[in-house]
C-alpha cells in the first residue's frame, strides 16, 4: 500500500542544481523502473524517497501523507544499495537482524522472519558467515534479504545487479520480478540499462539531466515515444533521426521498421534511395549501415542477410512507423496536431523531387 | 561533539603557546610582578650568554646525526628484511621492542652498558686489549652515546614504516623492472627510492621534530654534562625555568626560539603534505 508522489522537488549540491521542479507519481504496487544515462539523477531521486539525501525543497508524499520530515528509519522503506552497503563487521544473520532490533521487533518474530527470508533468497547455509567470506552474488542476496526482512511498504533498489556477471544478472532479474509478484509492494528499481528496464518494469520512468522524459509502460515507451531522447534511449540500435532539407522538424524511424528493396513499393509513406556501407551479421538478424543520397547515415535491422556492401536499394518506412518531432525534439502526434498532415506530406514528396 | 576536544586543545595547547610568547617579553620569576623588558631576554639569549647557543648547537648536531643514521639504517634494514619470513618478522619485532619501552629505562640500561668502571662496553674493549673509554663522561663522546641510544630505541619503529611503504609499491612495477633486467642498484635508485620518497620525506620531518624535543635521555644519562657538552634546548629551558632562580621570562624566550624552529619545520611539513595530496 504505497503510492509515492513528488511535488515540486528541487535538489542541489552546493551550487549545482541536479533536479529542478520535478513532479512525479509512482503508483502503488507497481514495479517502477527509473532509467536514464549516468549522472541524470536516479540515485538522487531514490535517496530523496529514502530520506537519506533529502530534497532541497518540495514535498514528498507517501500515500498522500507528507513524509518530507520523517527520519529515514521510520519511513517504512527499504533500500538495496548499488554497493550493497553490507555491514562488514557483522555476520549475515546480524546484518539481516540489525534493522529489526533497532525497530524493537520481538525476538521470536525476528527469528521467524529471518528464517523465512533467508529461505527465500537461499542464504540459510551462510547465516553465520562474515560478508568477506561470501561471493558477489551471495552478498547481493544479503542486501536483498536485509531489505525484505523489514517488510517495507516501498522497496528501493539502486542498480542492484550491476556488480554481477551476465549469467547471474539474468537469473536475478527474473527472481526479482517473481519477488515483486509475491510481495505486491511498490518497487522502485534504478538502472541505466534500458534492456533491464524494459525486461523488468511495469512502469518505466525515463530521466535525463534531472528531468522526467517519459513515464509509461514498456510497450508504450518503445512504440510511442514522447520525444527524440526517449526514441533514441530505448531500443538498439537507437531510432534513426533525420533532418530534412529546409525543414525545421525531424523525422524518426526504428532500424527494425525499415524495409529495403530493389523496386520501391508504391504505398509507403517514406521512400529514399540508399547504398549499403557496412554489414554486421548478428545471427537471426543483420545490421546494415546505409547512406542516403544527401550523405546522412541510418541503421537498419533486418532478418534478410543476403544484402551486400555496395548494393544500391530503396529504403522504405510505413506511415505508422514514422515519428515526427518538432524543433524542440518533442513528438508531433497524428491525433494531436494539424501540423502532422503537413509534415507527412512533405516527407512523402521528398523523394519524388 | 567537537566542543569538548576543542576546549581541551584551547586550554592546554593553544593558550599556553600564546602565553609563552607573551611571557618571553617579561622578567618574571613566579613570585615577583612581571616587568616588561622588550627583547632583552632574546638579546641575552642570542648575543650575551654563550650557553644557549651551545645548547642549540648540541641540539642541531644531535638531530642531524639521529635523522641521518635512523633513515639510512631504516632503509637498509628494510631492504634487507623485506622478504616475508618467520625469521625476518621475528627480527622486526625484536627491533621494534625498544620503541615501546620508556626512554628512562632505556637510558638507565645504556648508562649501565656505558658505565666506565664495570660497564659492558669497556669490558668488551678490554677483551680485545683496547684501553677503556670514558663514554658518557667524555665531553666529545657523550653526545654520540645519546645519539646511539636514540637510534637504537626508535629504529625498529621507522623500519616498520619503511617496510610498509616498500610493500605498497605495486608488484608489477618491480616485476617489470626485473623483466627489463635492471641491475639491483639501479632498480633501487631509479624505481624503489622514488616510489617511497614521500614516506621518507615524511620521516625526515617527523624525526627531526622529535629530535629537537629530546630531554629524557639527556636528563637521565648525563644531565647535560659533562660541562654542558650535552645540554640541549629542552634541558636548557627546563633548567632556567625551574632551577636557576626560576627565570621564567628568560626560559620562555628560549622556549619561543624552540617553538619558532619547530614551526618552520612544521610549515615545511604541511607544504609537503599538500603536495602529496595533489600528487595522488
Amino acid at each position, binding site marked *: 500500500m504505497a503510492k509515492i508522489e513528488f511535488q515540486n522537488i528541487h535538489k542541489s549540491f552546493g551550487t549545482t542544481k541536479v533536479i529542478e521542479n520535478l513532479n512525479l507519481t509512482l503508483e502503488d504496487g507497481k514495479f517502477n523502473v527509473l532509467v536514464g544515462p549516468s549522472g541524470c539523477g536516479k540515485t538522487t531521486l531514490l535517496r530523496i524517497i529514502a530520506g537519506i539525501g533529502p530534497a532541497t525543497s518540495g514535498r514528498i508524499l507517501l500515500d498522500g501523507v507528507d513524509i518530507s520530515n520523517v527520519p529515514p528509519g521510520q519511513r517504512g522503506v527499504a533500500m538495496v*544499495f548499488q554497493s550493497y*552497503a553490507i555491514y562488514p563487521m557483522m555476520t549475515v544473520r546480524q546484518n539481516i537482524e*540489525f534493522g529489526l532490533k533497532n525497530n524493537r521487533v520481538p525476538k521470536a518474530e525476528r527469528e521467524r522472519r529471518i528464517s523465512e527470508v533467508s529461505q527465500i533468497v537461499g542464504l540459510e547455509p551462510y547465516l553465520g558467515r562474515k560478508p568477506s567470506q561470501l561471493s558477489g552474488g551471495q552478498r547481493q542476496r544479503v542486501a536483498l534479504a536485509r531489505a525484505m526482512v523489514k517488510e517495507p511498504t516501498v522497496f528501493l533498489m539502486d542498480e542492484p545487479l550491476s556488480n554481477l556477471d551476465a549469467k547471474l544478472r539474468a537469473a536475478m532479474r527474473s527472481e526479482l520480478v517473481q519477488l515483486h509478484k509475491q510481495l505486491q509492494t511498490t518497487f522502485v528499481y534504478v538502472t541505466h540499462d534500458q534492456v533491464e528496464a524494459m525486461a523488468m518494469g511495469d512502469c518505466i520512468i525515463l530521466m535525463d539531466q534531472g528531468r522526467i522524459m517519459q513515464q509509461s509502460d514498456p510497450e508504450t515507451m518503445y512504440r510511442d515515444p514522447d520525444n527524440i531522447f526517449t526514441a533514441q534511449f530505448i531500443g538498439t540500435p537507437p531510432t534513426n533521426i533525420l533532418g530534412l532539407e529546409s525543414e525545421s522538424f525531424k523525422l524518426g524511424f526504428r532500424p527494425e521498421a525499415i524495409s529495403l528493396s530493389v523496386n520501391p513499393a508504391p504505398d509507403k509513406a517514406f521512400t529514399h534511395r540508399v547504398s549499403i556501407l557496412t554489414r554486421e551479421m548478428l545471427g537471426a538478424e543483420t545490421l546494415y549501415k546505409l547512406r542516403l543520397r544527401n550523405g546522412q547515415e541510418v541503421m537498419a535491422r533486418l532478418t534478410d542477410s543476403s544484402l551486400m556492401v555496395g548494393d544500391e536499394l530503396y529504403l522504405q518506412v510505413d506511415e505508422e512507423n514514422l515519428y515526427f518531432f518538432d524543433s524542440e525534439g518533442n513528438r508531433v502526434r497524428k491525433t494531436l496536431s494539424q501540423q502532422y498532415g503537413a509534415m507527412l506530406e512533405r516527407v512523402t514528396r521528398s523523394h519524388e523531387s | 561533539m567537537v566542543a569538548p576536544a576543542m576546549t581541551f586543545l584551547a586550554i592546554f595547547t593553544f593558550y*599556553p603557546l600564546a602565553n609563552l610568547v607573551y611571557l618571553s617579553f617579561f622578567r618574571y620569576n613566579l613570585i615577583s610582578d612581571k616587568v616588561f623588558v622588550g627583547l632583552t631576554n632574546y638579546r641575552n639569549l642570542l648575543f650575551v650568554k654563550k650557553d644557549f647557543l651551545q645548547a642549540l648547537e648540541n641540539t642541531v648536531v644531535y638531530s642531524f646525526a639521529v635523522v641521518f643514521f635512523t633513515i639510512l639504517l631504516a632503509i637498509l634494514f628494510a631492504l634487507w628484511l623485506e622478504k616475508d619470513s618467520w625469521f625476518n618478522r621475528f627480527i622486526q619485532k625484536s627491533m*621494534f621492542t625498544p620503541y615501546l619501552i620508556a626512554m*628512562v629505562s632505556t637510558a638507565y640500561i645504556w648508562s*649501565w652498558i656505558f658505565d666506565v668502571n664495570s660497564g659492558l662496553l669497556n669490558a668488551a674493549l678490554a677483551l680485545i686489549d683496547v684501553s677503556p673509554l670514558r663514554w658518557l663522561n667524555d665531553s666529545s663522546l657523550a653526545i654520540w652515546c645519546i645519539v646511539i641510544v636514540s637510534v637504537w630505541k626508535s629504529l625498529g619503529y621507522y623500519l616498520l614504516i619503511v617496510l*610498509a611503504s616498500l610493500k605498497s609499491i605495486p608488484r608489477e612495477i618491480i616485476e617489470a623492472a626485473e623483466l627489463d633486467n635492471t641491475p639491483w642498484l639501479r632498480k633501487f635508485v631509479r624505481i624503489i627510492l622514488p616510489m617511497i620518497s614521500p614516506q621518507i620525506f615524511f620521516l625526515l620531518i617527523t624525526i627531526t621534530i622529535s629530535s629537537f624535543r629530546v630531554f629524557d635521555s639527556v636528563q637521565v644519562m648525563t644531565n647535560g654534562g659533562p660541562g654542558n657538552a650535552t645540554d640541549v634546548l629542552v634541558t636548557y629551558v627546563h633548567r632556567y625555568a625551574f632551577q636557576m632562580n626560576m627565570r621564567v621570562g628568560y626560559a620562555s624566550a628560549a622556549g619561543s626560539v624552540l617553538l619558532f624552529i619547530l614551526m618552520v619545520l612544521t610549515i615545511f611539513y604541511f607544504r609537503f603534505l599538500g603536495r602529496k595530496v595533489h600528487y595522488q
Partner: protein
Amino acid sequence: MYSKHTGLDLRRGVTSGISFAFKLFMLVLFLFPFYWLIITSFKTYGESIVFPPTLIPRNFTLAAFEQVFSRLNLWNYLKNSIIVTLSVIIIQTLVGVPAAYALARYSFRGKGVMLALVMAAFMVPTQITFITVYIMMSKLRWLNTLLPQIVPFGASAYGIFLLRQAFMQVPADIIEAARLDNASELKIITRIMLPAARSSLMTVSLFSFVGSWNSYFWPLVMSNSEKVRPLTLAIERLKDQDAGINWPVIMAGNMIMVLPVLVIFLLLSNKIISAVGYRGIK
C-alpha cells in the same frame, strides 16, 4: 655451463650465510640490552661489578627487588602510574571519538578551521607548553594531585586525527543503510564506526598507554611531592640515595616498570606490528 652454475650456487650460499650471521648479530644488538637488564636485576651488587662481567648470574637472588620495595613505597608510584594511564586513555577515548566522528561525517561551519587546529596541536610538543601549563597548575593548586598529569591530555590531537581518518574510510552507503535501519547516532558509532576503526582505535590506545606510562618529563615538572609521582620518577630515587650506583637495584626497578609494556607487546605483537606499518604509510 655446469661449473658456472655451481659457482653461482656457492656465491649464493656464502651471501646467505653472511646475511644470516648478520641477522643474528642484529638480534643480539637489539635483544641483549633486555637480557642484560633482566640478569643484572637478579645479581648481587658484588657480582654486578666483577670483571669480566658474568653472563649468567652465579647466585640467583631477589635481593635487588627486596631493596627496591624496602627503600621505596613502590605501591604508591605504581598506583599513580596506573591511575594516570587509565584515566588518560578513558578520557581521550570519550572526548576523541565523538570529535573524530563529527569531523569525519558532518559538515558544519568552522570545520576547516577546527581540522587545521587539530593538525597544529598535533605538532605542538609538551616540551614547549610546560612552562605556562605549570604556572596554570600552580595557580590552581593542583601540583600535589594527579590532575596535572591527566587533565592536559584530555584531548589527543593525534588520536582524533587518526580516528577521523579511519572513520572516513567507512563507506557513506553503510552509514545510510544503518540510518534506514533506524539506528541512532550512538548506535551508528558503537556498532558500525568503532568496529570498522578497530585497528586505529587499538593503535591510538596503545600509544596513549605507552606515552602515558613512560612519560618522565611531564610528571617531573608537574608534581611537587613523592605522593603524586609515577614509576618513571621513582627509579631516580634508587640512584640518589647510594654512594656508588647499585646497578642491580636500578635494573630491578626498571624491570618492574618495563614489564607491563613488554607483556602487552608479547601478547599483541602481530597486531601492533601490522597496525604501526599500516599507519605509517597513511
